[in-house]
């Protein structure tokens, strides 16, 4: 595609950048509400217990305490907190407040008071008596006959997926093709290894926050730090038994989500307070609460068994994934599915394949959506597995991947067999520049020259590692997005979108798409997003869908507007539409040489003849989910005295189709890469013997500082996805998938120890090196 664009591919400034920098645009907690009530949740210290008694009276006796909510006085409606499309693919297994607590951090009650300080103090005064039950912490034991059962028979899945609370089974996927036995017979060697991806927190800098109030028309307004405003409205209406028509959800500016805010956790609680007391309510979590009580990355144990011929051909591949869902099954089925469906198609030439996935309940923190969404966990296993395979057969890893990965025009049986929680959709890959990505990585990291060289300085040894991945662009046949536009008489346009900018820059990217279609400057677009009263529907910011699906909706909508503009221009110029050409913010008749600007056209349509409002609505619903591709390479230095690993350099090369805004695309990749390095190197949930997270603060749960980060090189490889808006695919999630396996592979390259479980702390690396020395 050699088309020249006016807006696409330009590194436009984020349209909210200045307002954010000056502090004029607000986050949830910046909205001052008069007479606001403050809420403080009370959590269970026990992993599994029945609540015998809640005595609110000492708290209620305090000056300034207004209410205490618990199962006693709140609607008891089974639901899932997962903010997904309806009906949700996650099991209905939770109440707002329950009589049973299922993890240390499960909510028990909520104090409502006149100030945060009173709420804090009062929360400590509520007396709660528990009867302890034996808890379940080991996911491997969850399905044992004698394992404690977390949930009762009343729980169910609204989509009728495999689900059995009697066996602690939150979800199950079992599928395959070909014949494993045949594959095994054809193999020269069998590689059978198990990899473990661990708990992680999203660490969005803005914690989960919500404020609610009744507006002057008596409607309930919910200001929420959310990725899914329309799902919030639907779920609040259902679980609070309050009419949907009376709820308006507004998403202001958001300080990051990464999946953590694709969860409807706080909104119903604040809403209930406003409904009960007809006053504004505020509920903002502390960092400790975000760690312990919100949602996490699901830990997944992945066993990969593969048969390989001497030439490297994989004769069979078996993936067995055990996902620890924690106490509730939020996203348990879909994250599990993606662990296979976003990973296995990469090696589409394998003829015999099987995927068994199980999600089980344990009395530990609850998993949820998190950037990468199962693919991160799956690729941690697959990329190490390929490194092991290549080392055993003495094959060059980059060349091996280039030979075996899915290519343009090809498909994978997995696409059709496995979707997000149900069967998938057959699709062919129409754009794949993974070879280019791999070449950039090997060149930039100096692969040939460093690999296997174990370059030493003193006690420190260097190594290099590589990993690759694909993701998707939205959920095909499930996700829908809509846009609405109207034209104003100065030639500006209102662009109203349900899409949810959570700091990603989607408001800017979607405005660029509309500006491109209409051939106007970006500042002609007035963007309003994520207000359930004023914008059309959109599923929200998840599944790497916004640029692709919402982008297609915006493009379609802008094209409808353009058609109307040209129609009016034809009437004004007394010619036919097909004779006219667009010129910047105007329309030209090449025959007469006459040009009329957008303001004149809109004024004509508003005031002169055959008056009407130039406006349009469009929605998109897609049947495919074109995968973006990435290769990431790292160089590490391992200190053999202390076990400390320093990542020296990280290269990311991505095929995300046409980058609508290259700067924002790079930002997404770098952000995800840092996120991935952090998950690989330091992030870790440490539990006490009774299942309580003991490092629930940034003091002890570390994410990197600038001083810890490597030199980063990010390349967006030219590519074009035919089905995408102006050739775009997704870019938000994919960059988190490779740092962890690439670093593991690099550590092996440096010191010859294989780490099947992250984070790669000095303690772990030290132990592995010592163990290896003892063996030798």
């Amino acid at each position, binding site marked *: 595609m050699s088309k020249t664009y006016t807006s696409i591919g330009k590194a436009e400034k984020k349209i909210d950048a200045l307002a954010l920098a000056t502090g004029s645009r607000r986050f949830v907690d910046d909205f001052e509400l008069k007479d606001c009530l*403050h809420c*403080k949740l009370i959590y269970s210290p026990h992993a599994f217990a029945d609540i015998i008694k809640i005595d609110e009276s000492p708290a209620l006796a305090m000056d300034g305490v207004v209410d205490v909510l618990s199962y006693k006085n709140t609607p008891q409606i089974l639901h899932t907190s997962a903010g997904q499309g309806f009906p949700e693919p996650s099991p209905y297994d939770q109440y707002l407040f329950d009589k049973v607590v299922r993890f240390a951090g499960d909510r028990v009650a909520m104090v409502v008071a006149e100030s*945060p*300080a009173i709420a*804090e103090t009062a929360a400590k005064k509520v007396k709660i008596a528990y009867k302890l039950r034996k808890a379940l912490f080991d996911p491997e034991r969850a399905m044992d006959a004698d394992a404690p059962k977390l949930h009762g028979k009343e729980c169910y899945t609204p989509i009728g997926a495999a689900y059995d609370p009697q066996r602690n089974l939150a979800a199950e996927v079992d599928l395959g093709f070909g014949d494993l036995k045949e594959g095994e017979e054809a193999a020269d060697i069998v590689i059978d290894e198990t990899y473990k991806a661990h708990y992680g927190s999203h660490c969005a800098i803005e*914690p989960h926050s919500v404020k609610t109030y009744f507006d002057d028309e008596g409607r309930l307004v919910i200001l929420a730090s959310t990725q899914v405003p329309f799902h919030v409205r639907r779920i609040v209406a259902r679980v609070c038994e309050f009419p949907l028509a009376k709820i308006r959800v507004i998403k202001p500016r958001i300080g990051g989500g990464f999946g953590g805010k694709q969860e409807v956790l706080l909104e119903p609680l604040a809403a209930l307070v406003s409904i009960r007391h007809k006053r504004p309510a505020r509920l*903002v*979590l*502390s*960092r400790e*609460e975000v760690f312990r009580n919100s949602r996490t990355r699901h830990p997944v144990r992945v066993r990969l068994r593969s048969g390989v011929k001497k030439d490297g051909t994989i004769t069979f591949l078996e993936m067995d994934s055990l996902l620890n869902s924690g106490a509730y099954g939020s996203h348990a089925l879909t994250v599990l599915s993606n662990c296979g469906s976003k990973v296995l198609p990469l090696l589409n030439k394998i003829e015999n394949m099987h995927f068994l996935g199980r999600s089980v309940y344990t009395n530990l923190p609850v998993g949820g959506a998190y950037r990468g969404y199962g693919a991160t966990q799956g690729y941690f296993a697959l990329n190490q597995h390929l490194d092991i395979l290549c080392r055993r057969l003495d094959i060059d890893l980059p060349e091996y991947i280039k030979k075996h990965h899915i290519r343009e025009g090809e498909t994978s049986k997995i696409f059709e067999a496995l979707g997000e929680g149900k069967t998938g959709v057959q699709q062919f890959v129409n754009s794949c520049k993974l070879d280019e990505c791999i070449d950039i990585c090997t060149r930039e990291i100096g692969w040939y020259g460093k690999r296997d060289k174990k370059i030493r300085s*003193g*006690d420190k040894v260097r190594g290099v590692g590589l990993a690759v991945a694909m993701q998707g662009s939205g959920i095909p046949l499930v996700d829908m997005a809509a846009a609405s536009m109207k034209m104003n008489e100065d030639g500006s346009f209102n662009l109203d979108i349900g899409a949810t900018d959570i700091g990603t820059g989607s408001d800017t990217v979607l405005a660029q798409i509309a500006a491109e279609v209409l051939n106007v400057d970006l500042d002609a677009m007035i963007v309003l997003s994520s207000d359930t009263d004023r914008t059309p529907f959109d599923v929200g910011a998840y599944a790497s869908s916004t640029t692709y699906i919402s982008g297609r909706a915006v493009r379609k909508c802008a094209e409808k507007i353009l058609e109307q503009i040209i129609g009016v221009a034809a009437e004004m110029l007394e010619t036919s539409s097909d004779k006219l050409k667009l010129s910047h913010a105007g329309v030209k008749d090449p025959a007469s040489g006459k040009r009329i600007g957008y303001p004149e056209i809109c004024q004509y349509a508003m005031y002169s003849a055959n008056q009407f409002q130039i406006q349009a609505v469009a929605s998109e619903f897609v049947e495919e989910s074109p995968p973006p591709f990435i290769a990431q390479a790292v160089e590490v230095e391992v200190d053999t*005295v*202390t*076990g*400390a690993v320093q990542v020296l350099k990280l290269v990311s090369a991505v095929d995300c189709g046409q980058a609508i805004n290259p700067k924002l695309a790079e930002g997404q990749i770098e952000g995800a890469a840092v996120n991935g390095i952090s998950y690989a*190197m*330091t992030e870790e949930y*440490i539990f006490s013997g009774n299942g309580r997270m*003991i*490092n629930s603060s940034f*003091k*002890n749960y*570390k994410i*990197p*500082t*600038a*001083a*810890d980060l490597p030199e980063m090189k990010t390349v967006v490889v030219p590519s074009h996805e035919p089905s995408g808006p102006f050739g775009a695919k997704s870019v938000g999630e994919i960059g988190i998938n490779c740092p962890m396996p690439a670093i593991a592979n690099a550590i092996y390259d440096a010191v010859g120890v294989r780490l099947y479980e992250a984070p790669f*702390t*000095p*303690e772990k690396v*030290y*132990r592995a090196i*010592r163990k290896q020395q003892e063996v030798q």
Partner: protein
Amino acid sequence: MLDGYLPAKLSEALDMMAECDCIPFAGGTDLMVQHARGSGVRPCFDKTLLFVSALKELKTFDLMGKTLRIGAAVTLSELLENAATPQIFKEILRQMAAAPTRHMATLAGNICNASPAGDTLPYLYAMDAEVILQSRNETRVLPVADFITAPKRTQRKNDELLTGIRIPAAEFNVESYRKLGQRKGMSLTKASFLGLASTANGRIEDIRIALGSVAPHIVRSRKIESKLTGKNIKDIPGILQELQKDYSALIRPIDDARSTAAYRKQVSLRLIRDFLINCMLKKIP
């Protein structure tokens, strides 16, 4: 409530200390964290605060002969900026917290907080540094190593302020400091090692080894050090095992959210070995 006094002069501060039970408050970087209550809620103190960081008398920094004298209100950033601060001490300070915290935090606060993970302590122990304690009627001087009696415990009396720190001069030609944290910046210490030595003609004239975060107190043993003083460097390998055994008895770390006891112990011993073998042997002429 955050009730506090901002005395204008040291004498006023000492009067306050004598007359009411108050908490000296320097940079507040330990105190504010220790008294945090919850998000959106201000810290709460049960006693009156006495803000000492504005006292001019405690802002001094000078050399008395060869002894460095540091006022109790001098911040870590000011120490880093001062040309008289020894390089190895600067290296330690640079790895503490991050700039915004260092702009507030004081050396006196780090000492009085008396944490085995206090990063300045191994240096102060190794240098035989002293603290100056002043009350309305008395001034006394104590070695830092005696001043700190146990984790979070010091010999400071209720009416005393720590007014200054004295660090006697000493010259070293072998210096090594290693801080192990969960990451590079803004990280509390899992284990730290400081080795200082001066050698001449292949002989050890002076050697000091201190370790942080690996026992309830800073580990420094003059007895073990004396086994090395006067020895030829080339003889170290011969007694290394014995020395490591001696240190092993003193290193008594714990498991916590930052690391494990086993790792702390093994790596400390390796760092001692690394210093005695790799750093020292280089000094054989």
